[in-house]
């Protein structure tokens, strides 16, 4: 305080006097400027502005951007936009909406149509445009347009609607878009979205939403009494979303879908060279086009309660016991750990007594004395019971993990499941019970606690085929702007390496080749004349945990599996097929895989032939050009040969043109 008093005694506010008087003027003048401006607006322009306020129909009209297209690896459109018509109404101060809607309903009746109004139509409030009908037909459009005079405030709006060309076939992998939910609006990622915006909810649509969605534009428009626009005062064009070029192939997608007609399950194909997802199908599916305009709640209810789980992408979220497809892992583990050699043989008499139980082979009469190669080819269960027994569950789990099993592959889709690779510790934690030796035997043939997703299986087999590289599956090749500038390129991502010896890999790979191409092999369905497929059948038992512990007898309603890659020595495609309740793998899942692989090589051959033809055509054209040239240069000489060095350059150009 004393310090303050000292200050006080010598404080002299007069040193600020000049500044205060300047301020006094400054403040008075600036507030006077406000007053003058108010005078100008209210008195001088008052009448004019009052008129404008009475006729004020200036409003903002949002223009939604076009969502980017999803395009397959060959340039085929998988998802695009299609115009659709909505009816909106702008209620006026002296206008009875209910009456207008009744009039409209009357016009509909005259044409024998029902008028479906949205819920929002009932709650319409003054001066805010509401949608009263969505996605109307051409006939309905004609009604509304021809009666525009009798329907004041009613307008037709053209809105782009998402269209999935393959419909159900790509439902799970592409996903769908629909209006953003209040919960989603609250999250941090959706800060750039607002109510009424559409957002990718599932699949690639969700993963790539930020690239696809574009930026809204808008118009600042003046409308007349009936809500029709008189003039545009300002406009900001929307910016369309970017296009995404996917790794998927529309033809493979279709072939797989059709091959699984009437079945439930999934199929997924990868390119072992870079992890690209070539095909991904899940059945039963839903029609993604239904979701565009808001799916009726009854339909949603039906889909979400369907026991066939149509909303689940089974290729990544369906968890199945791998059955005999797991023998690939068991074989690799056995060889690597040295518990077997290629020559180690076991005798199969159709069953193996172990403890107080009998573990049966699917072949009741037995396989006789078999070593690794034949055991894989004929899928001998007894052989693998023996190998599994020698390895134990934890060593098996180690090799399963090496191949990326039992954990999500990291594909950019929501809802991927990790599956389950059991160990002794896991069982103790989960069931508070020690591991039983018999359970190890079950593991040998892919039964027991094992649960894997189709994409994990495809990825593991791809890794066996490509020399041990486990890629993170990729769905997107690149993002392109509308004028085809590349915005972002998705490089292959190596997730892990399954480090096993070349020797082991060759042994198992040739055994898998035998499955499809040797006599007595279970994968005969995949025997192409090129003999280029390697794969493994599988039959997964669908029984409860408890039942499974009691018996390994084959049950009805088994899931059929087939996993394969081709060409066997330099794979370009790896595929996993699961047909739920399909019985034996070789007979139901095999043909699906076969059709997809056939289609893949058919397309490849066709493309090569086309390229060759284009090359030939280019050569011909070149020859002709050269002919003309030489004829011009030396008219007396005979027509010359085409110039070979110029050929290659032209060919590339031609190829591009033909695409």
């Amino acid at each position: 305080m004393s310090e303050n008093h000292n200050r006080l005694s010598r404080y002299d506010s007069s040193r600020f006097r000049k500044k205060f008087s300047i301020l006094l003027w400054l403040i008075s003048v600036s507030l006077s400027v406000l007053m003058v401006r108010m005078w100008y607006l209210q008195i001088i322009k008052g009448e004019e502005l009052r008129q404008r306020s009475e006729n004020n129909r200036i409003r903002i009209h949002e223009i939604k951007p076009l969502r980017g297209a999803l395009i397959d690896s060959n340039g085929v459109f998988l998802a695009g936009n299609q115009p659709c018509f909505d009816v909106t109404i702008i209620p006026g101060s002296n206008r009875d909406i209910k009456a207008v809607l009744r009039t409209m309903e009357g016009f509909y009746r005259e044409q024998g149509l029902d008028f479906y109004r949205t819920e929002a139509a009932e709650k319409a409030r003054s001066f805010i445009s509401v949608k009263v009908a969505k996605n109307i037909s051409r006939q309905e459009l004609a009604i509304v347009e021809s009666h525009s005079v009798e329907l004041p405030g009613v307008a037709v709006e053209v809105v782009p609607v998402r269209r999935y060309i393959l419909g159900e076939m790509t439902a799970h992998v592409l996903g769908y878009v629909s209006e953003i939910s209040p919960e989603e609006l609250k999250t941090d990622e959706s800060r750039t979205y607002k109510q009424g915006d559409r957002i990718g909810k599932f699949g690639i649509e969700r993963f790539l939403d930020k690239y696809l969605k574009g930026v809204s534009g808008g118009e600042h428009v003046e409308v007349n009494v009936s809500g029709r626009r008189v003039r545009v005062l300002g406009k900001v064009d929307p910016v369309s979303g970017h296009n995404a070029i996917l790794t998927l192939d529309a033809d493979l997608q279709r072939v797989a879908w059709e091959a699984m007609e009437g079945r439930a399950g999934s199929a997924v194909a990868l390119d072992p060279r870079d992890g690209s997802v070539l095909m991904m199908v899940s059945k039963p599916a839903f029609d993604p086009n239904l979701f565009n305009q808001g799916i009726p709640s009854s339909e949603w209810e039906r889909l979400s309660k369907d026991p066939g789980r149509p909303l689940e992408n089974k290729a990544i979220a369906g968890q199945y016991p791998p059955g005999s497809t797991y023998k690939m892992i068991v074989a690799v583990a056995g060889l690597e750990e040295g518990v077997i050699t290629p020559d180690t043989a076991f005798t199969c008499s159709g069953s193996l007594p172990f403890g107080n139980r009998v573990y049966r082979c699917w072949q009741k009469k037995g396989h006789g004395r078999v070593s690794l190669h034949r055991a894989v080819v004929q899928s001998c269960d007894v052989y693998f019971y023996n190998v599994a027994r020698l390895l134990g569950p934890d060593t098996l789990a180690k090799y399963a993990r090496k191949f990326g099993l039992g954990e999500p592959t990291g594909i950019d889709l929501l809802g991927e499941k990790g599956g389950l690779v059991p160990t002794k510790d896991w069982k103790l934690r989960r069931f508070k019970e020690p591991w039983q030796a018999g359970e190890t035997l079950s593991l040998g043939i892919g039964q027991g606690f094992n649960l894997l997703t189709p994409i994990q299986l495809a990825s593991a087999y791809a890794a066996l085929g490509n020399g041990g590289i486990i890629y993170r599956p990729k769905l997107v090749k690149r993002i392109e702007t509308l004028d085809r500038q590349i915005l972002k390129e998705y490089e292959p991502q190596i997730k892990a390496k399954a480090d096993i010896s070349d020797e082991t890999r060759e042994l198992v790979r040739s055994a898998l080749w035998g499955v499809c191409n040797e006599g007595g092999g279970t994968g005969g369905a995949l025997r192409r004349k090129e003999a280029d497929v390697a794969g493994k059948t599988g039959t997964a038992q669908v029984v409860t945990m408890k039942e499974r512990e009691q018996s390994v007898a084959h049950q009805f309603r088994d899931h059929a599996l087939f996993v394969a890659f081709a060409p066997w020595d330099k794979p370009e495609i790896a595929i996993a097929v699961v047909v739920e309740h399909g019985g034996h793998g070789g007979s139901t899942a095999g043909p699906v895989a076969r059709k997809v692989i056939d289609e893949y090589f058919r397309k490849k051959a066709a493309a090569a032939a086309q390229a060759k033809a284009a090359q030939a055509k280019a050569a011909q054209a070149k020859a002709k050009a050269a002919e003309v040239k030489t004829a011009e240069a030396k008219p007396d000489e005979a027509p010359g040969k085409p110039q070979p060095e110029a050929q290659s350059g032209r060919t590339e150009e031609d190829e591009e043109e033909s695409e």
Partner: protein
Amino acid sequence: MKFDRRLLLNFDWILLMIVVAICGIGILNIYSAGISLTAAKAEPIYVKQFIWFLVGLAFMLVSFGIDYRLINQYSYPIYIFSIALLVVLFLFGEITRGTQRWFVIAGFSFQPSELVKLTLILALSKYFCVQEIEGDYNLRRLWLPAVMVVFPFLLIMKQPDLGTAMVLIITFVSMVLFVGIRLRSLITVVTSGLLLAPVCWMFLKDYQKERIMTFLDPEMDPLGSGYHIIQSIIAVGSGGFLGKGFLKGTQSQLRFLPEHQTDFIFSVFAEEWGFIGGSLLLILFLALILWGLRIAQHSRDLLGTLIAFGITMLLFWEVLINIGMVLGIVPVVGIPLPFLSYGGSSLVVLMTAVGLLMNISVRRYMLQR
């Protein structure tokens, strides 16, 4: 603290009357503005605003009662506390409507940046008292106050709340010019600022550049601020001389004007009460500001002068920028109109500030011994 009879004897009744009059107009106006907004079940916003007004009165009483020289001893801690709130908000605040400005406590939201406006004035006043010198300040003595303003400035820009951030800078500049800055220092600051601006511009993100460009030229954004301006001008102008009458402003009642209960509240008032009402309100503001200047001028110590000056300048700039924006002569920037815009934080903080003005006003007599 013992009650001093002189607090009542020399009480600044004029200041109280002006502020209560402005607040009264404010609540009445919020009542009108809120009618078209309030859902059937929810509590009308004017009730909330009235509760905030009562809270403001309580804070006013406190800031009036405690000797400002005593408050001054805690100016730095108070300032640091308010900055800490900003930091906490920055780190943990929930993002609503794309910005991060509020704490929500029991249904009432609180905006720390409003508080910082006042605590900054207190902290700066203290600094210039402690560092009091003869003549003008040079840059060596001004770097600390600069830090005091730049730190919250950056946090508030990040929210993003360009308006509030600008008010902080303008208030700071006003106070520095008032205490005096050497001509050479001023020239250095201005030229280096001009030189640095293009460099900073390069570091801004595209959307930030866009925001600044639209601020300078609202026509670039005909759907956002451009729309606001046109609708606001129509609202004000259509009020004419006498106004359309209470609750009869079509522009705002029919919701042509977005945000009309906050930043564009003056257009609601001018539409319904016309030139007569608008002028009356402007005169009340003028009276308040000039009265604040008078208090600053007649304070018996430098501290009182500086605090009163800072508060008065804060009021002046907010009134000038907000009404200027509503009348279409200042670019659109989110600054509330003191005592009228809907929002508790601004109202309570400003009423607390008015309490400080009364505090300084009444104690000039008590210091005359």
